[in-house]
């Protein structure tokens, strides 16, 4: 028997600053305080996409809770605001816009999942729009916000909310926090990586000739993947599925009151977003370089822009190799639709801490980690691709994506849903069933037939419950404050 601790990893080098590196360093040091965590903050050759994106999923609150960060520090002081979802416009040209929110649609009814009942009501011509049956989405449309109530029976007990962050201010908070908990930061530039004979990292060589050695290295250098690229060149290219490859962002002054609803609007060559935090707003345009010009794209934004930044969708099949783990864009590059970037970083950090290895670094843990990471990345890819595959825009850029051969996992999801409204289960989903449903139904994908299971419950009863739920949501929305009022009211501070 070995005593725990004797083979323990003592020193972790986090290579690369930005939201990815600082998040990883802060979390490691906070959750495993006996570690020495060195952050080589200037190692990335350029900021990642993630450092420009305003959207964060509800899981960000778990990340903050794990760090012991309250909303006072992580939300209010950074100018972040609560977000309840995204208004999706123009994705299916013949359909009204829809909200992709977080949380359940409709009440639980006997016989089968709620959405199957809704599909029957829809075919009967008696269903309210699907997103009006989700409290979070309805609140979002109304520009209102309140935290959920503590009851799973209440429509207002079952929604989640993320954050709209201001990336520079949020990063500044993370830096201060990381330094406060004892991350040692080295601002010297990184010249390169010296691998060992077996293809692990031997040491990091700095610009001034010094070296850094650690037991474990995290590659947070973005898509350049400066560590991983020195070890292998394995990469799974997803560009045939995820069409967009350029992005331009603009930080703009806040013109109106902040909204808990950001927007993702499809256009001829991709899509654009607008989002509002508590103090500033963000706009961005995401497109395919062959479908428009950079100037054209830039003109659609107001104010000072950054970019275009080019990116190539794909994933590293083995983000953890030996003593080196790729986190963030060094592991997976997926365009911003759905705002998964920060979530994937948090998820990777949490997975690594849960599986934290010892100095022996057996491949068993890495294999399990890599399998989970890959499954997770694939399903995020599928979810993003779903928007394109289920679009009905006519411009030349669009039809090819709905005619493309889909990944088998997405094909499977779509085939089952189109047939009877069933969604197959996959491990390691980032977007839950209600989110898949929001997009599928929002973009007009409906099951071909009504599932036999719901026929055992009378349609009239289902319709009555749907109407009552709808009315309860409408009344509850009216009773809740606008987001600005919620943020400005000190009594509304989120309970810790």
């Amino acid at each position, binding site marked *: *028997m*070995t*005593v*725990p*601790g004797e*083979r*323990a990893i003592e020193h972790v080098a986090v290579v690369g600053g930005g939201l990815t590196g600082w998040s990883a360093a802060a979390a490691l040091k906070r*959750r*495993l*305080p*006996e570690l020495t965590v060195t952050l080589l903050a200037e190692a990335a050759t350029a900021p990642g996409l993630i450092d420009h994106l305003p959207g964060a999923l509800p899981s960000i609150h778990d990340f903050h809770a*794990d760090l012991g960060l309250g909303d006072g520090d992580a939300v209010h002081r950074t100018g972040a605001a609560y977000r309840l979802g995204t208004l999706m416009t123009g994705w299916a040209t013949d359909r009204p816009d829809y909200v992709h929110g977080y949380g359940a649609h409709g009440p639980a009814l006997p016989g089968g999942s709620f959405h199957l009942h809704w599909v029957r009501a829809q075919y009967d011509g008696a269903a309210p729009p699907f997103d009006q049956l989700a409290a979070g989405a309805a609140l979002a449309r109304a520009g209102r916000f309140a935290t959920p109530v503590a009851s799973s029976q209440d429509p207002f007990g079952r929604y989640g909310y993320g954050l709209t962050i201001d990336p520079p201010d949020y990063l500044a908070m993370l830096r201060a926090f990381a330094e406060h908990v004892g991350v040692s930061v080295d601002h010297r530039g990184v010249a390169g990586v010296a691998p060992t004979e077996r293809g692990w990292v031997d040491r990091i060589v700095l610009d001034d000739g010094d070296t850094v050695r650690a037991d474990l290295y995290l590659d947070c250098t973005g898509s350049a993947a400066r560590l991983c690229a020195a070890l292998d060149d394995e990469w799974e290219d997803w560009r045939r599925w995820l069409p967009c490859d350029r992005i331009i962002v603009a930080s703009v002054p806040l013109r109106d009151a902040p909204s808990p609803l950001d927007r993702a609007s499809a256009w001829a060559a991709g899509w654009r977003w607008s989002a509002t935090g508590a103090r500033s707003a963000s706009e961005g345009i995401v497109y395919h370089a062959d479908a428009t010009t950079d100037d054209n794209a830039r003109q659609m934004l107001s104010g000072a822009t950054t970019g275009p930044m080019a990116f190539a969708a794909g994933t590293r099949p083995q983000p953890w190799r030996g003593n080196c783990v790729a986190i963030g864009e060094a592991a997976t590059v997926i365009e911003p639709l759905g705002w998964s970037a920060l979530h994937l970083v948090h998820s990777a950090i949490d997975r690594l*801490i*849960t*599986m*934290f*290895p*010892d100095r022996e670094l*057996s491949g*068993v*843990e890495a*294999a*399990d980690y890599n399998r989970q990471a890959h499954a997770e990345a694939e399903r995020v890819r599928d979810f993003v691709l779903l928007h394109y595959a289920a679009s009905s825009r006519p411009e030349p850029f669009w039809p090819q994506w709905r005619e493309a051969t889909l990944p088998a996992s997405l094909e*499977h999801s779509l*085939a*089952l849903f189109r*047939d*009877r409204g*069933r969604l*197959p*289960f996959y*491990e390691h989903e980032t977007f839950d069933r209600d989110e898949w449903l929001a997009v599928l139904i929002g973009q007009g994908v409906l099951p071909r*037939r009504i*599932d*036999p*299971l719901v*026929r*055992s419950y009378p349609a009239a009863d289902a319709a009555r419950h749907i109407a009552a739920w709808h009315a309860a949501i409408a009344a509850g929305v009216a009773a809740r404050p606008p987001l600005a009022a919620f943020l400005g009211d000190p009594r509304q501070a989120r309970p810790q």
Partner: protein
Amino acid sequence: MTAAALTALLPHQCSVHLVESEAIGIIGVGEATLPHMRAFNQRLGISEAEFVTATRATFKLGIEFRDWGRIGDSYIHPFGTYGSGQGAVDFHHYWARLALAGHAVPPIEAFSFACALARQNRFALPSSDRQALSSTFDYAYQLDAQSFAPLLRRRAEAAGAQRTEGMVSAVERDGETGWITRLRLSDGRTIEGDLFIDCSGFRALLIGEALEEPFEDWSRWLPCDRAVALPCRTATAVTPYTSAIAEGAGWRWRIPLQHRTGNGYVYSSAHLSDDAAAARLGAAVEGEPLAEPRVLRFRAGRRRRSWVGNCLAMGLASGFLEPLESTSIYLVQAAITALIELFPERDIAATDRDEFNRLVDLEYDRVRDFLILHYHATTRTDSTFWHDVRSTPVPDSLAEKIELFRRRGRIVRYSEGIFRDASWIAVFTGQGIVPQGIDRRAERPALDDVARSMADLRDAIADQAARAPGHVAFLDRQRLAVAA
């Protein structure tokens, strides 16, 4: 089960015609189940009181495994969790930490409320207060399967299922598609249908004999291929758990029902003759035998596809895994749930069929790995059987699970299917696979604090369990309630 579920859950949407022969017996030799059984009963509106009375059932908190890791060992695989269910890091990491630090730590079952109840021969329903220790478990039944079938039959018939007594003599198929068009009975009657469900047991009349769907043989990992069954009068305790006692060429079950105890010896015919097995079982049963020993033959494995064309196999027709972890009824139930959720139209979409087969395969594969673990994690060398099973290489999927647990106490997580964390922990630790390292976060609290709170927890579990009624007293109370 299938006919009762179809008529109850898809009323008026399909007509169900059940062909059954009294000449073909029910395999049930006393069945131990998993907690999922309760959900099945609830969905069908079968109350616990009605069920327990009709099937002479007893309650089941888990399975006791005796002599598996080595002769003399005993552990319980509980339907419940370890620890009090709090904290970011799972309880077993703290338990392993104390052991690794040289503390005298009791077996992990001392920290399971379900195990404490079981060891004390007590039973109570789980508390609905999530904070309470008495909420950290679930339960199942030990039942007489022979009397469960008539209960289901009555339900199915009352809900509109038509039942035909007869023997299938021929299966007629469409020349082009190969789909089954009708069944011809030995008396000349014919039965047509859109979908044919093969519940014919080992014979696999439709999917095997008629459609010749290949059978994937798993006997290289699970060599037991016979069982001899022998019910007896109960002479010792009516335990709220099933026992699985390792033997020289397999293992022996003990399943106490209200009115008798089911016993059986599952063995490998390559290592033991039928007569020797029957003799060993006869010597081991605790009370007066209530029947002649009956030998059953089987082979571990499953159909390559359980749903082919318009024919779908359930239960033993679709596959067989020895009853070591009481999975037989569960696997039927999982297949029924999948069928209800994917109930097809007349032309049967391939997507429904493929998804059904995917789900069924997933369940079988998980159970298979879990069963193999029992034979692999042992130091027994007292017979050729144990030597053989112990040294057989395990599937990669299992080897990796073992290695992850052994190194750092990690359990491979999945959110669909049976046998979650606590089940793996029970068998790993019960059969000598203990973590050599633990989750780093569990090393943070002071060792003395961990030791103290574990001791407190152990006492609290033992005390609270001691306040529950005895298993037989609980059964009597329920019987009185039914009578009133």
